[in-house]
């Protein structure tokens, strides 16, 4: 028997042995449910109340998750191409500051632009998304044209964008925002924005040429190039989208807080990467789904909320969060290894 026949035979056996493979999101969802149930049990034991039967808590969780989630949708796409975006947190701070400066009410005593107050919501929105887009294009162009590692390019942007955020008002916050602007941050709106963004890019990744090319580049950039994909142009697109989404997250963050500060969004990039990785996006590229990232973001939110609920010290929370992120990557590496055998 030739080796090919042997391989074909084993390949033929695989599906029958495993049955129909479940989509990877199912296992992540099970993890989420598991964590929630653990908190539920621990809640009754140590705190004497339910973790889940508390609508206010659930609302807070989902609200907290939305901003990270919006960023994570962009970061997921970047990671699928085999890259990384460390700049999103700083871009949040930068766009929050700049967008807010175009959203100040005339009633506020010291607006950044005294002649540009009470503008309609569309202006700060466009400005914010535009700033994010610009940051993303710079990231993408640097990576695609100079071939420097994404880690370095976006690290540079992370430092510089934070610098812009501080320089913009010499450190002072931008307050007195219009109700129109703040509206996007009230009630359930951040969640709506998150879910709409997630839906759009879920569709884009799964059903459009943009999505197919994104996965192809992550799976094998050389092969993608030989197959006719303009890899440079595509990478710029992907980083630009990540930038726009970070900009959107900046707007939502400022609107929620009804003020903008240069320190907004610090370490959000890490939470977003964590959400993507927990959601099954592989740091080696070519693998990942938006649905997984949404669940990943919710897992992160539930974990944090659970710690607070169980009155775990804030310091422990951070320590444990770090452990979880590393664990998610270890699981990913293990998954990749197992696949190869």
């Amino acid at each position, binding site marked *: 028997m*030739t*080796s*090919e*026949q042997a*391989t*074909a035979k084993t*390949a*033929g056996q*695989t*599906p029958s042995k495993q049955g129909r493979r479940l989509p990877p999101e199912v296992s992540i969802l099970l993890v989420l449910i598991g964590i929630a149930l653990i908190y539920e049990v621990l809640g009754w034991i140590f705190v004497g109340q339910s973790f889940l039967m508390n609508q206010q808590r659930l609302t807070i969780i989902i609200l907290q998750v939305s901003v990270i989630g919006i960023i994570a949708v962009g970061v997921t796409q970047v990671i699928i191409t085999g890259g990384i975006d460390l700049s999103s947190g700083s871009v949040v701070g930068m766009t929050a500051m700049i967008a807010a400066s175009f959203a100040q009410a005339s009633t506020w005593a010291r607006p950044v632009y005294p002649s540009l107050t009470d503008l309609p919501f569309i202006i700060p929105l466009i400005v914010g998304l535009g700033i994010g887009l610009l940051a993303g294009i710079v990231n993408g162009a640097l990576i695609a044209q100079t071939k420097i590692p994404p880690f370095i390019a976006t690290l540079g942007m992370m430092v510089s964008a934070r610098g812009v955020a501080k320089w913009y008002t010499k450190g002072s916050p931008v307050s007195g925002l219009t109700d129109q602007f703040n509206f996007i941050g009230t009630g359930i709106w951040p969640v709506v924005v998150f879910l709409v963004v997630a839906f759009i890019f879920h569709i884009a990744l799964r*059903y*459009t*040429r*943009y999505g*197919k*090319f994104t*996965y*192809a580049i992550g*799976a*094998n950039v*050389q*092969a*993608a*190039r*030989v*197959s*006719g*994909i*303009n890899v440079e142009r595509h990478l710029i697109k992907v980083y630009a989208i990540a930038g726009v989404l970070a900009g959107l997250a900046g707007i939502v963050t400022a609107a929620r807080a009804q003020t903008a500060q240069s320190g907004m969004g610090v370490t959000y990039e890490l939470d977003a990467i964590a959400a993507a990785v927990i959601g099954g996006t592989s740091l080696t590229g*070519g*693998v990942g789904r938006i649905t997984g990232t949404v669940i990943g973001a919710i897992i992160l939110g539930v974990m944090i909320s659970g710690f607070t609920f169980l009155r775990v010290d804030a310091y422990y929370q951070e320590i444990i969060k770090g452990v979880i992120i590393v664990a998610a990557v270890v699981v990913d590496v293990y998954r990749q290894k197992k*696949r*190869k055998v």
Partner: protein
Amino acid sequence: MAVSPTTMAAVRASGAVPKAEYLLNVENIRKEFPGVLALDDVSFRLKRGTVHALMGENGAGKSTLMKILAGIYVPDQGEVFLKGLPIRLKSPLDALENGIAMIHQELNLMPFMTVAENIWIRREPKNMFGFVDHGKMFEMTADLFTRLNIALDPESQVRDLSVANRQMVEIAKAVSYESDVLIMDEPTSALTEREVAHLFEIIRNLRSQGIGIVYITHKMNELFEIADEFSVFRDGRYIGTHASTDVTRDDIIKMMVGREITQMFPKEIVPIGDVVLSVKDLVLKGVFSGVSFDVRAGEILGIAGLVGSGRSNVAETIFGVTPATSGSITINGKSVAMSSPNQAIQHGMAFITEDRKETGCLLILDVLENMQIAVLQDRFVKFGFVAEKEISAACKVMSDKLRVKTPNLQERVENLSGGNQQKVLIGRWLLTNPKILILDEPTRGIDVGAKAEIHRLVSELAKQGVAVIMISSEMPEVLGMSDRIMVMHEGRVTGFLDRDEATQVKVMELASK
């Protein structure tokens, strides 16, 4: 009953080395890789103070044998004797300590360290405080260079040296281990004539000191110039050993290729149409130059040549992967700029690359995703959305036609065999309805059955009027499939052979010109 390196060293130091007839003696070595028998019952003997050349086509087993001698591979069967004593080499370090040093084709030096540091790495002379004694190290290096007649500054950084000088450093390093056996793998491939002359001088010097040199080469003239003896290998088998004064060039070529072409190439003779692709004076600076040829509709143009002759580079340049420095590419009479694969695809070209894993397959994605990726450039897409149903149906038809053995289109490509991966890649390009198909080593690492299927398919495409360019290292494949053969050597086209006149001997002659 292998002897440990320390024992060997002690034996050597005592001068009590048994006066074995041969310095190195390899008996009945067998080495198998998954699916390939690389060496089959091979024996080989190296005399003291001689240069012994190893000859053979690509894949004849020379490199595998060398890697066994250098401790990189462990043989499945057989024994290696050094000066009559059996040794068992488990690592390159092992080989080095036994006095066998290999100078690799791709040099293994650390570019940011000095020449002296590179030579004495791991064995640096130390001063009384345990720090590296640089003064002494440079002295030792200078002595070594004097002995070998090498004019190099021991303190210069390796990255500043030319390839030839790096090779000198490698040789000096090997000699510094007091090696008895030196293995050189095509050492002149990147050298100028003058540098080659210097290298040969050094080799003769080493030979006169009693060192045995195993010398791999594809170049006939070198064989007659430097080698005392030579051994020929073919398809993993040892063919014979002769003194280089006893034979002619033709004798050696016959020994290298002397096999019958099997009847597995179902090449049909089809009417050949107009010129589809015409390449004129194509140059890729430093890689190849002056490449000109035409390919006609229905024609299969084979490109033969040794590995490194620039065959694959020509294909990559025509396809826009590495745009040409100068020269022109004409398709159907129109001159075209070829600066990206995307442009090549727009002009009806398809390119199945040499390395399936590196530049072909999207291994972690499934069969469907792998097949559709090239055709999505301009078909099966509406408003950015992929027409899933249509493309799936088209891929299914293609995969059935090519008889890809896969449970379904959702199977990851990495789970398929090499032959089926290759079929998926062929399917990827056939979906684009190419007018020009470039195949680089289309059947490398594929078993016989799949090979024949791929050959039949290529023949069928030519019949439909596709112009085919096929690069192959397998002589029977080139001879069996091609209407015309272009032979390359060191970045130049050395000749064209028509199907009727082409023989293995003629191709080999052109390939080693």
